[in-house]
């Protein structure tokens, strides 16, 4: 049994290594634009998915994914811009061959039009951008008047991770409990069972609806193939329990942050996530689904476009803010790296203290002077207790401080994304203006050539593009306004969060020292009693 599990583990790793090649080929394609690499990419892609995969077809595979930047999440954050662009794209690569069949033909170029099965995703840009602000505008304002700032009476807990299923089809289910007195919910207290891909599905829906109109949607915790595979394989060791605990805490923080946002709280998808006992499986978070591929393709296209858009920033506020966020990002990453090093060293200290305690006990045993022997045994006991203390402190270091920093680094990435959306909006507006100009020129030409039927068509087109230009301008102003408000809110939240967390952390440090005092005070008379 164990061997079979190990083989499946290794097999999955090999597949993901191939997927990494696949992704890098894709990036090469985007960079060079040559079709050779493109074909190479598709070749790899087909090779993986076709005959060699009777096994992966049976995997639920939602929680299996590659962090193409390597298994350690910290590496993602420390890599430069290049990985950032694809971080979201590649996180959704996973194994699920049945869904991806109809889409791909080597002729389609990436920067593109939606292909068949993705009817769900295709119209998002156009329709949602019209509907979303209209529907929620009124209620958003109402809620904001009701509560000054973000004080909503809603509390969310994520608890009781349990393993459901067996072998490679297993997954962890978490219980999400909500306590609230808000009227938009049907009950005051309720709980549901959710799995990790459900959370990702929720985030994906919210991001699709709100990011492009300027709202900062909190990012979901990251996928991790190593952790999940270990859990699936059934290893009951401390690292897999640690992994599950880390994930549970991250999911709780994610939900708490999401419900603090007044607009997101109103969203029906969020309500459905919290309330309904049965949630449709979020298959669109799988990468090999049509939606997944399309997303990846769109993101790559966006990445290239971002590099080519030169925006005339009329508003200095935005430029300043972007620079500020850039600086903040860098410094948080440095701080995060230092805190992670601290966690590591403190764990080492704890291990070394435990080893020393044992050694001191042995020394005490072999010492034939009774008082000294007893004192040495006491010393060994003190050191053992101190080792426990160090372990707890390392725990606090991590969960309180380090994870918060990680969350904020991801949040800032989301903020940067929102700024990028604003740029795209501006680009759209500019493009509409250019097209309008062209249409006007065409009309003028037609007037001179005197073709009445075509003239009418040209006039119609001009009207159409005029409305588009107006819409573009309105959208741009709307998104700028929203971003200003969102950034203000973000800054306030950041200040509050950091203050609370750092104070909590300092309190834990103080507590450790006070415990140390107790232990050494107990030891001192023993040492003095050596005659």
């Amino acid at each position, binding site marked *: 049994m164990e061997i079979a599990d190990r083989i499946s583990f290794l097999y999955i790793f090999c597949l993901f290594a191939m997927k990494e090649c696949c992704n890098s080929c894709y990036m090469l394609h985007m960079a060079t634009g040559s079709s050779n690499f493109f074909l190479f990419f598709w070749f790899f892609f087909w090779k993986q998915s076709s005959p060699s995969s009777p096994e992966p077809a049976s995997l639920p595979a939602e929680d299996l994914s590659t962090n193409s930047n390597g298994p350690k999440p910290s590496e993602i954050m420390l890599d430069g811009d290049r990985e950032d662009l694809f971080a979201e794209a590649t996180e959704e690569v996973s194994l699920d061959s049945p869904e991806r069949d109809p889409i791909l033909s080597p002729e389609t170029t990436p920067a593109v039009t939606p292909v068949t099965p993705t009817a769900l995703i295709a119209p998002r840009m156009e329709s949602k951008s019209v509907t979303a602000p209209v529907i929620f505008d009124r209620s958003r304002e109402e809620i904001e008047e009701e509560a000054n700032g973000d004080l909503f009476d809603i509390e969310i807990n994520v608890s009781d991770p349990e393993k459901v299923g067996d072998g490679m089809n297993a997954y962890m289910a978490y219980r999400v409990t909500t306590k609230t007195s808000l009227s938009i919910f049907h009950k005051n207290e309720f709980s549901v069972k959710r799995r990790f891909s459900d959370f990702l599905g929720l985030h994906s829906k919210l991001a699709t609806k709100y990011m492009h109109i300027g709202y900062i949607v909190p990012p979901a915790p990251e996928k991790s193939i190593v952790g999940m595979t270990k859990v699936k394989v059934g290893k009951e060791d401390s690292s897999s329990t640690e992994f599950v605990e880390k994930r549970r805490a991250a999911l709780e923080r994610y939900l708490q942050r999401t419900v603090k946002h007044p607009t997101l709280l109103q969203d029906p998808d969020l309500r459905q996530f919290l309330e309904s006992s049965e949630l449709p499986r979020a298959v669109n978070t799988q990468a090999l689904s049509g939606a997944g591929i399309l997303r990846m393709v769109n993101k790559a296209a966006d990445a290239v476009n971002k590099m080519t858009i030169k925006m005339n920033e009329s508003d200095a506020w935005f430029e300043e803010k972007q620079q500020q966020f850039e600086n903040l990002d860098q410094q948080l990453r440095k701080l995060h790296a230092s805190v992670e090093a601290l966690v590591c060293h403190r764990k080492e*200290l704890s291990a070394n203290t435990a*080893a020393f305690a044992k050694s001191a006990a042995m020394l005490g045993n*072999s010492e034939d002077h009774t008082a000294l022997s007893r*004192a040495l045994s006491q010393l060994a006991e003190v050191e053992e207790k101190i080792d426990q203390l160090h372990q707890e402190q390392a725990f606090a270091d991590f969960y309180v401080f380090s994870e918060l920093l990680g969350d904020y680094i991801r949040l800032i990435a989301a903020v940067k994304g929102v700024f990028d959306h604003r740029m795209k909006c501006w680009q759209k507006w500019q493009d509409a203006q250019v097209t309008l100009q062209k249409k006007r020129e065409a009309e003028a030409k037609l007037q001179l050539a005197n073709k009445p039927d075509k003239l009418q068509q040209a006039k119609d087109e001009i009207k159409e593009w005029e409305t588009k230009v107006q819409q573009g301008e309105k959208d741009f102003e709307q998104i700028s306004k929203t971003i200003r408000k969102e950034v203000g809110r973000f800054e306030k939240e950041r200040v509050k969060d950091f203050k609370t967390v750092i104070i909590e952390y300092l309190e834990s440090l*103080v507590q450790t020292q006070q415990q140390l005092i107790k232990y050494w005070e107990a030891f001192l008379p023993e040492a003095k009693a*050596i005659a």
Partner: protein
Amino acid sequence: MTTTLTEIKHLPTLALLVCCEYLAIFKKTVAMHEVFLCRVAAHPILRKDLNFHVFLEYNQDLSVRGKNKKEKLEDFFKNMVKSADGVIVSGVKDVDDFFEHERTFLVEYHNRVKDASAKSDKMTRSHKNVADDYNRIGSSLYALGTQDSTDICKFFLKVSELFDKTRKIEARVSADEDLKLSDLLKYYLRESQAAKDLLYRRSRSLVDYENANKALDKARAKNKDVLQAETTQQICCQKFEKISESAKQELIDFKTRRVAAFRKNLVELAELELKHAKLQVMCAVRKCPSD
């Protein structure tokens, strides 16, 4: 731009850091030397040695020459021979219970002290690593704090100061642990080795004594060179008894000294740890009374 400026601002503290480290190492070496000299002075026989008096009194440069290559090589060979011989000699059972007991005790004790000394070293080094991390966190927080002058940045600056102080205290904890615990164990590692060497010398002389006895018996049986054999035997006997007597005294002294040294160091260690922990609590409480 801002990062280089903050790094420059930290330079004076960097110089201070180097100073502190140097002082810590200096304190350590001085303490070891003091222990060594006190030991020699307390010994009834060694204190009368002329070399010792010259060392203490001569007020000009002693110009001690280090060992040259030949001497180092000689030492190396001597050690090899000694350890080989030690293995042979240790097979001999001792008539005297006291020495037999001491030998078993010393062998076990020496091994355990070696282990404890190594582990204590590792622990002290980990402590130092943690202190270094605090330093880096402090400077990162300082960089965050100098972004602008909003409330949160002032808060960051205060926390960065606190981390600085905590770091200094943790560094001192690590240095003191090193001084009181690790050095103590290292010293007794070497002392127990010296005690083992003493026992070896005594066993060696015992073997020589027994060999001289056998030679005397053989000579008496053959009735040849009896007088020579007798004198050798007498010398060996005297040597053995003298070494046994002084060894006994030395080993008893060793035990007393060991107990006293452990007591002194453990008490000082506990007191220092208490002092540092209290200082840390005070610093933290003073820094955040309003938060």
